């Protein structure tokens, strides 16, 4: 059994850990609120963008000559996967959930004998993938220095993707991120952005006759690259809200566990202190009896 001194030290170290996790929880809670607000404020843009693209793509007359970003290259040989993760740890299953989802997808691709290329955004994703998929990772990005999620960063990622697409380095692009549902639940998502998957034209009512200036094709080919940046930006916003939510619940758990541990250790400490006192008493009494 550990000595009294050791127990005392352990109790105080667990207590200080608890203080840290508690503070992290508070910080995450504050950041979560901001991240959530940002995610909500960013929504109108991506929704409107989506609407316009839907309208446009349904009115493009010449499906054969539609931009490749919409139509695809006609084959599905090379997949590019963009895995969006966080730059910091201590956020529960946040990163591993995305990675798990992504690895499942990678497995599927390699089973179908298609080639795979990976771009990681966020250093944690790179750390987790580099062991197994080192040769597939063609680019690793991290926006540790930017304080807030901003469109500029998303645009950078978008530009890289477009550039690679134009050089025909891949045929299909999929992004992986966590969708924020609530503080406890974040759902890892895979979303195909190239070629763009349009909803199966379910809102036919939306099919109004728009006037276009310049031609539809020209607008589309200008708009689609922007849409990719927008989708990535949306994913980054969702991700940051998820990260904070995940961290908050992870830290909440950690604080509670530390509390339980302190209780257990305190009981053990009291018991062994009592045992030591009893032992001393017995010694004294038996010493007195023998006289």
């Amino acid at each position, binding site marked *: 059994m550990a000595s009294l001194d050791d127990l005392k030290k352990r109790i105080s170290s667990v207590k200080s850990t608890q203080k840290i996790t508690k503070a992290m929880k508070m910080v995450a809670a504050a950041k979560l609120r901001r991240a959530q607000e940002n995610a909500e*404020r960013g929504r*109108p843009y991506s929704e409107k*963008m989506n609407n*316009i693209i839907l*309208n446009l793509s349904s009115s493009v007359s010449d499906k054969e000559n539609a931009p490749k970003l919409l139509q695809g290259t006609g084959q599905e040989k090379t997949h590019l996967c963009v895995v969006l993760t966080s730059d910091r740890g201590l956020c529960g299953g946040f990163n591993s959930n995305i990675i798990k989802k992504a690895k499942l997808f990678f497995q599927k691709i390699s089973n179908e004998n298609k080639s795979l290329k990976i771009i990681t955004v966020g250093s944690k994703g790179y750390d987790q993938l580099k062991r197994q998929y080192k040769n597939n990772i063609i680019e690793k990005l991290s926006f540790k220095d930017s304080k807030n999620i901003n*469109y500029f960063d998303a645009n950078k990622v978008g530009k890289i993707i477009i550039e690679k697409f134009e050089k025909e380095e891949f045929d299909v692009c999929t992004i992986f991120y966590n969708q924020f549902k609530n503080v406890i639940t974040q759902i890892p998502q895979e979303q195909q952005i190239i070629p763009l998957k349009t909803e199966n034209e379910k809102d036919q009512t939306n099919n109004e006759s728009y006037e276009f*200036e*310049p031609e539809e094709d020209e607008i589309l080919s200008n708009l689609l690259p*922007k849409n990719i940046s927008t989708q990535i930006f949306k994913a980054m916003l969702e991700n940051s809200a998820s990260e904070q939510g995940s961290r908050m619940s992870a830290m909440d758990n950690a604080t509670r566990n530390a509390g339980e541990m302190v209780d257990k250790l305190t009981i053990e400490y009291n018991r062994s202190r009592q045992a030591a006192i009893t032992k001393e008493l017995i010694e004294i009494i038996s010493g007195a009896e023998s006289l």
Partner: protein
Amino acid sequence: MSEEFKVEIVNPEKSFFSKEDVTEVVVPAFEGEMGILKDHIPIISFLKPGIIKVLSQSEEESYFIEDGILEFKENNLSILTSSIIKVSDLSKEKIDKIISDSEKESSIEDLDDQKKFLIDQKIDILRSLN
């Protein structure tokens, strides 16, 4: 009033600006300046760098944008743009900075004509503001 319609300007971060009682909006459309009044035909258009003017009965506001898309439908005008600044907030230093950045960008050799045209346009507009 009958001559008014709704405008919303959205950038990726937030809904930047929204107003219910607008009488006219002048935008730098791709093929020239375009004024939009109530009951305009539904239109989707591309914007080039320039000034958006929002006119209402009481006031007139101007914004500088670098790019954007415009959608007008059922007397709702939405403008999506990635960079927008209110003209009255543009200081001389800011303008100079954007100009010098753009000049650097336009000096890259293998730029296609359309991009070059847009950047030159941007520089011209900013010079005229100065």
